[in-house]
């Protein structure tokens, strides 16, 4: 079953916008609804859109399963590494040492009702980014494994 040209063109036009929306959800995880898992799932949906719309040969030429497995492991390493840095500084595991420090993501939250500053919350946005990378890789590996069950000539 081959998808029509309309489906392929629509998926290719829609893909960057879905990607940008997913990255927005990941990066604003500490301010708005959503976070690492939701944003990663949205990004994976964008990748899956391209996978379903295109033919089997085009997809397996473009996207390697090894790359996404490595990406999943990278996200997990980033998560546990960010948690373990606090131990090397003599602080408890998962301690939020970046909050209110003045460096990256280190501004203090202003008092009272405000519109929300992206550059706050310390380690939490970094954890969100790590989870986003991990979910993006993991869900794409699921779809690519599902796709590898197809016969080459039928797809």
């Amino acid at each position: 079953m081959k998808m029509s040209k309309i489906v392929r063109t629509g998926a290719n036009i829609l893909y960057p916008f879905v990607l940008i929306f997913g990255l927005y959800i990941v990066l604003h995880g500490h301010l708005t609804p959503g976070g690492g898992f939701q944003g990663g799932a949205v990004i994976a949906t964008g990748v899956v859109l391209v996978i379903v719309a295109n033919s089997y040969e085009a997809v397996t030429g473009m996207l390697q399963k090894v790359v996404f497995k490595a990406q999943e492991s990278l996200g997990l390493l980033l998560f546990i590494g960010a948690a373990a840095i606090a131990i090397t500084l003599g602080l408890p595991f998962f301690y939020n040492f970046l909050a209110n420090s003045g460096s990256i993501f280190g501004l203090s939250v202003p008092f009272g009702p405000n519109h929300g500053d992206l550059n706050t919350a310390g380690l939490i946005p970094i954890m969100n980014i790590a989870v986003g990378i991990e979910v993006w890789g993991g869900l794409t590996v699921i779809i690519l494994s599902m796709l590898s069950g197809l016969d080459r000539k039928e797809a």
Partner: protein
Amino acid sequence: MIETIVHLLVLFGLVGTALMVFFFRDLLAATLAAGFFSFLVALEFYILQAPDVAISQAAIGAGLTTAIFIIAIRATTRYEGEESR
């Protein structure tokens, strides 16, 4: 008042799409109806003021599971009761 009407529309849409999934012979159409069911569930979560869950449901339920079903239909047959190739 308007919220009650929208809520009732969503709930009747849920029942309608669930019946569509049950009665369609074309499995691709049934899969798309299941995707629309998932989208309506996401809308219901949003009406019940859980936008976090709504985003998850829209991405996983309406996006990924529909894609998995479409890939499975690609590997098998499109119509219910058809002989396997």
